[in-house]
């Protein structure tokens, strides 16, 4: 509905300035109404989805044993929260997975950034290692998880390792690209101003590559979680991945869904933290037009 139609009835009697004030108020109302509408629609989609699932399951349209239903998933999460899981308390499982993912992520990011910038800056290294990096990247790295299990055992080390290999490549390629695509004018300017090679790397190349690197950090934390979970799924003593595998082993489909829900929440919180950090780091960047 156009905002004018709201202010028009009053406009006849009122003077011009208050007319304008009325109009801007109406506009603000329209904005609020739209936000409400969007959020309402979002909620509706969720309720519809969960409701249909529950209803189909109860009515027997879909097999309850295989597909479970939201109320059972909720009960399962509640049981885990209140009474703990088969391997110990829920918090312990979440923390185990998070810790593995975090270690893997930090190591993978550090290695990716370091090597990416080194290869992006030193042509010789790029020429020598380029083909090997390509070969490694072409491999489906998730199949390395069983090998890591053999190498590093059931403990956290094997999960960290599979997280590292998943995180490394996207970070590496972005850092490499970032170091390569530095504005040549900026480098020339820094050199004229008296910067040494080292200073160019640390004060020009790395700052301008950070926005590239940060894009990959978002994606790669998700990868780190995948690495940790898959590692746990294959063989572990603790963690969300083990919970999925135990639930699957006992044909507890609600347990699988419940673990997935917990994972999604954990991943979203981590994503939120990263976005917050990014905003603080990139104050020098102009706000994107249209972004909120």
């Amino acid at each position, binding site marked *: 509905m156009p905002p004018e139609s709201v202010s028009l009835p009053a406009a006849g009697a009122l003077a011009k300035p208050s007319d304008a004030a009325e109009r801007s108020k109406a506009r603000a109302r329209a904005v609020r109404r739209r936000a409400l509408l969007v959020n309402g629609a979002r909620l509706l989609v969720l309720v519809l989805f969960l409701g249909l699932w529950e209803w189909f399951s109860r009515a027997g349209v879909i097999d309850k044993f295989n597909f479970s239903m939201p109320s059972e998933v909720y009960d399962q999460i509640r049981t885990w929260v209140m009474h703990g899981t088969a391997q110990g308390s829920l918090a312990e499982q979440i923390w185990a997975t998070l810790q593995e993912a975090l270690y893997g992520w930090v190591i993978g990011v550090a290695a990716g950034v370091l090597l990416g910038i080194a290869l992006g800056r030193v042509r010789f290294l790029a020429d020598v290692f380029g083909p090997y990096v390509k070969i490694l990247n072409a491999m489906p790295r998730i199949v390395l998880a069983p090998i890591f299990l053999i190498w590093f055992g059931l403990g956290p080390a094997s999960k960290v390792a599979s997280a590292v290999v998943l995180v490394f490549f996207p970070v590496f390629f972005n850092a490499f690209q970032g170091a390569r695509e530095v*504005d040549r*004018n*900026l480098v*020339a*300017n*820094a*050199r*004229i*101003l*008296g*910067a*040494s090679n080292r*200073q160019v790397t640390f*004060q*020009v190349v790395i*700052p*301008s590559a950070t926005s590239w690197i940060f894009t990959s950090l978002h994606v790669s934390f998700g990868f780190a979680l995948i690495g940790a979970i898959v590692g746990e799924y294959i063989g572990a003593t603790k963690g969300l991945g083990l919970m999925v595998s135990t639930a699957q082993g006992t044909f507890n489909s609600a347990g699988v869904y419940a673990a997935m829900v917990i994972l999604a929440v954990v991943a979203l919180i981590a994503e939120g933290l990263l976005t917050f950090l990014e905003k603080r780091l990139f*104050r*020098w*960047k*102009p706000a994107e037009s249209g972004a909120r």
Partner: protein
Amino acid sequence: MTSNTSPAIELRGAGKAFRTPSGALHTAVRDLDLTVERGEFVAVVGPTGCGKSTTLTLVSGLEEPTEGEVLVGGEPVGGIGGNVGFVFQQDAVFPWRTVLSNVMAGPRFRGVAKAEARERARDWLARVGLSAFEDRYPHQLSGGQRKRVALAATFVNDPGILLMDEPFSALDVQTRALMSDQLLDLWAGTGSSVVFVTHDLEESIALADKVVVMTAGPATVKEVFTIDLPRPRKVEEVRLEPRFVEIYREIWSSLGEEVRITRERGAAHAA
């Protein structure tokens, strides 16, 4: 500087050829002979894309000549000298540094202590009228303000040789005149030698002691004109003087021909 008698910049038969991505050899400049005396303001004009900027990169040490010699202060250029300042055509301020930090960059790169660098940077920011903006980031400034940051960042290093590559070409006409005046003011106190590349003949006459006209590419020096307009000048006023118009006509008769050649070549390419 080894001796005080040698000119600030000397190019002797200098030439530069690039290898294009397709493998062909492209000659940007050839047989360049040019002398810039100490404290002299030289403007280089020529048709668009003729290789004027290459001349500057040779003097700065960013590129090496493929032929001939380039001497700065009587010594052949080997790498980037500490005595050179360069103002680029595009924005070359660091977007992640604040205005103050940008101006401090040069002295900091050269190992000046932080406190002293800050003091010198503040001094130059005051001279370009940006003291109130020292905490801003470049994206929060206008194009003209960013250019002034670039000028302050260059002058703070106290360069004996100042190279400028169409520094004001991206600015609107009024800002441009303002910046030209400001440049003359800043330069007046330093005694440095300037090479100012432009395709704008008016700008070059208003600013320079000597105007060098380049041929259509591959560029070489066609003619050199001495500008005998008295200093200090105000660019908006000086261009109305009869002597200015006279000089303009004289140089344009030389430059116009090269511009026409370039234009015809462009048309031939398009056809």
